[in-house]
């Protein structure tokens, strides 16, 4: 029993790390821009599709450009659409980004079709590690490492580099940043692009794990919202803790009661919102109060 719990928990960590990556992008977008981006899952899916396309045309090494391309798309979307939402009430950003998400998903279906695209991990990463009850594919271990690295790099960027500090300051107090002579609109464009790029990285990593299909977007956005609600909107730490917790909870629920697996993360969120509405590490945002 303990062995099965252990193997499920390890599996859950891998799932959790992907959820963390998706949620962190969402949290950043909210934290820095005040926009709840319902289209986040669509950028996740777009990342996977662009990676698939690049892989088909140029092979695996080209796939690193996928998040960059999606980030650029995100920046264009910000300039054209998102910047009109700043300062407006949250409901508007929800509706607009929800519609945007549907639009991107529909465009994906137009260009690539509604069927799933098989995408296998690159050959050096096929195969499994087996230690007794622990069974994990090499690719999942690679995903774990890649997400951990990405998260660490992101955290370092936001905490230690001047650009990262400016981004955080812009999220806190945009007027002051503006008055200090920093080009705020360009900053916000970059921030949105960053959020989308992170979603795309998660999509690129998840593509070989789960088939690349248009419904990936929904499979990503729902856990992302749950994780962000549990961890606290706008909190990096919260997204990490909550993401891992959600991944492990889902995997352990599958062990005992699989049909409750999908519901388990919502039950978790429900409990959290009852006991501590702002989430584990959430902060009170002046904007909303």
């Amino acid at each position, binding site marked *: 029993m303990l062995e099965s719990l252990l193997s*499920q928990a390890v599996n859950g960590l891998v799932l959790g790390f992907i959820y963390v990556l998706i949620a962190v992008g969402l949290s950043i977008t909210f934290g820095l821009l005040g926009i709840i981006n319902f289209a986040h899952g669509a950028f996740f899916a777009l990342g996977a599709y662009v990676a698939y396309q690049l892989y088909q045309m140029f092979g695996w090494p080209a796939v690193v450009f996928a998040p960059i391309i999606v980030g650029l798309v995100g920046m264009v979307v910000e300039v054209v659409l998102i910047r009109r939402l700043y300062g407006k009430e949250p409901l508007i950003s929800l509706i607009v980004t929800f519609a945007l998400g549907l639009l991107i998903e529909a465009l994906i*279906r137009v260009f690539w079709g509604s069927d*799933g695209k098989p995408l*296998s991990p690159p050959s050096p990463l096929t195969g*499994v590690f087996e230690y007794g009850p622990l069974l994990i594919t090499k690719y999942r271990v690679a995903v774990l490492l890649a997400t951990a690295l990405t998260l660490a790099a992101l955290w370092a960027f936001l905490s230690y580099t001047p650009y990262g500090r400016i981004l955080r300051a812009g999220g806190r107090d945009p007027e002051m940043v503006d008055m200090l002579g920093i080009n705020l609109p360009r900053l916000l464009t970059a921030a949105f692009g960053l959020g989308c790029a992170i979603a795309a990285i998660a999509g690129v990593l998840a593509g070989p794990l789960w088939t690349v299909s248009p*419904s990936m977007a929904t499979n990503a956005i729902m856990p992302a919202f749950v994780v962000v609600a549990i961890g606290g909107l706008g909190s990096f730490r919260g997204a990490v803790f909550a993401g891992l917790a959600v991944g492990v909870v889902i995997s352990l629920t599958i062990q005992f009661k699989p*049909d409750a697996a999908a519901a388990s993360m919502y039950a978790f969120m429900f409990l959290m919102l009852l006991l501590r509405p702002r989430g584990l590490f959430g902060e009170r945002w002046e904007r909303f109060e």
Partner: protein
Amino acid sequence: MNESHTMSACGSIGARAGLVALVFGLAASFGALAQTTRPIKIGMIYAKQGPSASLGEFLAHGTELALGQAGNNVLGRPVELTWLDEADPQVAQQNMQKAIDEYKVIAVVGGNSSASALAMMSVASREKIPLILPGAAASEITGKNCNRYTFRTQATVPVQMRGLMPYVSQLGKKVYFITPSYAFGQDILRSSRAMLKEVGLTEVGTDEVPVNTADYSSYILKIRQAKPDVVVGGLVGLDLSNFLKQWNELGMKDKIPFVEIAVSDTDFWNVGPVASTGIYVKPWYYNNPDNTSSEKKFVADFTKKYGRPPSDKAWSGWIAMRSLLESIEQANSTDSAAIIMALEKWRYTEGKFPAFYREWDHQLIKPAVIVQIKKDITDKWDYFNVLKLTSDTEAETAKSFGTREEIGCKMGPI
């Protein structure tokens, strides 16, 4: 002078009367012409999105091709086909209502998910519009929930499971089930559990998985812990593709055999030859040498039009639409009751023995085909070897579909 005036007055009245009669006659005949050339509307309800999107696409193409082969018209009138979504049971039910109210269809061909089918059937019965289900294998559809307005082409879960069972018992004694958590999956469990006892197999574990699950790694770990001899699945569409992919990646493909019923070619085309494995029951296979000549023509026409061979879903849509069009022609009317009665008498006479909708439950009595993934897949589309049919003679087929008491369908009047 007077006479000529009277004559011309009479003449002019006569002429006017004649003119009016001519105009009325023309108007009436135009009206009749318009009536007979007014298009007949038929609805299709298939998934456009979600895990069953590939299934929906092929179903729609097959249905459209059947109409195309019939010259895009029936009873000398053009047919307008409208394709609405079957994203989930609610949407399917609403679209069924919409097809009837807004698009004024005279019949609907649609419904692949058993859950959607059950929802759509109630609308069909209430609105008295014929519904032909090309998919949806759960037994209650032509069983305890049956109604006079619904017909179904796919073989039921018990028929398919009974075809699969001999292969399951050859593979071992311990069975693990991984089925989706809705009517179809529950029917698989119900039918299988009864059959397991008969052949002396034991169930070592069951997982009922929510539809549209992306990550099966935890389930695969559980299966591995339970150490079964064979895994019986029930996953649908992209869910099956995802499962097989992850099953292969975790190294389980060559360790424990996997079997399932009611699968479709696209499930495997979407995952690729490397991860495909197993023995399956499905309605039809395009590369079966025993296909009838009209089926072979269908394969040729489909491949020419769409650049790939038809999956079994395309055939299901095709045969459903064929049965509808032929029944409308036979009934010589677009009236629901007439179409229903014609469908109940419809027969597909090509093949070793005829296929037909059984009168008292509207189930298409036709054997399904048992296939196995080829050891070496060289062709882009040809993944399967045909092993056998679920029943070889007319009598065997009728028996396999169950008796009236077993099925439990009680239909009302039209």
